[in-house]
């Protein structure tokens, strides 16, 4: 899913970069509370791990292969904000050191693979763990969270593609193909995430952010026998509401900024092409009949509105999840 240079129009790339920067700075602000002396290397390891496992392409079906996105795993192990940072670091390192993923597409890659996956996965995960806060639920929650996060990221990709992809492929087809294959990839992602979380949970429960707040009492052996003392409690995972608010703000930014750029400055290359009359004909059926597709006024929908519409749909899904979470919480408390 690493988007290379030139895959999206410059305007969408810039828009996504603004969103990614906003998301990362929100994450930076909040991650300080998630990380301490001991968890900072954990974030590094999670990043290294995501990197390594991304090289392990698992075959999906009919000749396509997918790789771990890692946002879900990171969110559960180190918390959602740190997760965004981990994935951002992975992508930066891949882009600058390994030439994997375009430098100008970094914003898009961070938004899709970092912010979207971490937000979706954490939301789903907390929802499940809230219902039944025990080890089984944590593992099951990891599976479902990872499973859901991948196709959602794929759909977000398709949405961005519809706004400003440079390839003349039917946006609906892209959404279907991406969504379809990524459901399968999501299963792989879910398995890897669940197994990793459960093995970490078995050996080092202290390392799982999503499972914080469990300590056993200590025994003291003195000359006159044994005495039991209470151990200090570890920090608890942060409540979910502020996180959802943050995610909501980022989604709004996504909607606002990307469509602003998409509408206000049509892509340089298309402008030139049109100036030269080169694409005069082609641009009409650039994305076929899809109303969401072109960012001219195909189908009577004015410039930019198509983009906003696409993102609003994503937003609605996000808000739906938030609502469900809140309702579940009311039920359980």
């Amino acid at each position: 899913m690493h988007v290379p240079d030139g895959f999206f129009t410059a305007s969408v790339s810039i828009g996504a970069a603004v969103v990614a920067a906003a998301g990362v700075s929100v994450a930076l602000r909040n991650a300080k509370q998630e990380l301490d002396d001991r968890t900072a290397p954990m974030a590094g390891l999670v990043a290294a791990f995501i990197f390594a496992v991304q090289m392990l392409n698992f075959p999906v079906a009919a000749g396509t292969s997918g790789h771990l996105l890692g946002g879900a795993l990171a969110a559960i192990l180190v918390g959602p904000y740190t997760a965004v940072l981990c994935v951002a670091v992975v992508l930066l390192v891949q882009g600058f050191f390994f030439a994997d993923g375009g430098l100008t597409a970094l914003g898009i890659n961070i938004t899709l693979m970092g912010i979207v996956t971490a937000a979706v996965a954490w939301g789903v995960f907390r929802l499940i763990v809230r219902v039944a806060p025990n080890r089984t639920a944590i593992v099951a929650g990891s599976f479902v969270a990872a499973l859901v996060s991948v196709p959602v990221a794929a759909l977000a990709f398709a949405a961005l593609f519809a706004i400003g992809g440079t390839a003349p492929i039917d946006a609906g087809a892209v959404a279907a193909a991406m969504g379809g294959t990524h459901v399968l990839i999501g299963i792989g992602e879910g398995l890897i995430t669940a197994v990793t979380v459960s093995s970490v949970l078995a050996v080092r429960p202290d390392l799982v952010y999503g499972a914080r707040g469990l300590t056993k009492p200590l025994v003291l052996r003195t000359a006159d026998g044994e005495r039991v003392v209470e151990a200090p409690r570890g920090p608890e995972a942060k409540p979910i509401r502020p996180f959802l608010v943050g995610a909501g703000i980022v989604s709004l930014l996504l909607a606002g900024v990307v469509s602003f750029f998409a509408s206000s400055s049509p892509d340089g290359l298309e402008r030139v092409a049109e100036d030269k009359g080169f694409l005069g004909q082609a641009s009409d059926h650039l994305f076929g009949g899809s109303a969401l597709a072109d960012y001219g006024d195909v189908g009577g929908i004015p410039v930019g509105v198509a983009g906003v519409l696409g993102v609003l749909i994503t937003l609605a899904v996000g808000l739906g999840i938030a609502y469900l979470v809140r309702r579940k919480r009311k039920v359980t408390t």
Partner: protein
Amino acid sequence: MGAGHHHQLYRPGDTLVHRLPPQCKLLAVAAFAIVVVATPRERFLAFGGYLLLLAAVAAVARVSPGFVLRRMVVELPFVLFAFAIPVIGLGERISIWGVSLSVDGLWASWNILAKATLGVIASILLAATTEPRSMLLGAQRLRMPQLLVQIATFMLRYLDVVLDAMRRMKVARESRGFQARDLRQAPILAKSAGALFIRSYERGERVHLAMLSRGYTGTMPVYRDISADVRQWLFAGALPVAAAALLFIS
């Protein structure tokens, strides 16, 4: 653990390019990538010029074309995708050697291939002439948030541990006749992933504890002065500026 790895990426040398402070190179490459992406796709001359610019950088840095080509395999998945675009693309079609291809798809394919390739080559040259560690110092210098630098530092340190452990586990798996063929093998891969995670964490944790016990507080101490003078900025800036100039004259 710790040192001198990533040999595959970094080509040690003592050229003008190698000696440039990392922050100059980082900015230059990023700016170059932006110019490339902003170039309209029919400016063939400009793209040719960019390639020549990169060739010049490679020559000055004494990075061999063979090395760059070998490293370019990372691009392969997208090359395949790019070749598929004209076939599945929409719009006006022409027939080349009996294959019906989308005109616009051909353009898009060229656009992605050209830009992605130039971007990849620029990044390869950056990594070939800059040690990962010094790249991080450069990023720190460019005011990249401390937390990100810290995570990246740990990540690079862990990467060797993880990759090494992964290689050994893969050998162990395959020597027992395992091959990843389809989704059914996923549970086995997933289990390896879990074990891998714990193994690497505990190795790295000890190193981290050692660092803490020597007063580490999250910032790597900078022993060497890596500040850049005007001349170095000008030299590094030559790449994106020349590229921008090409964009305008073409």
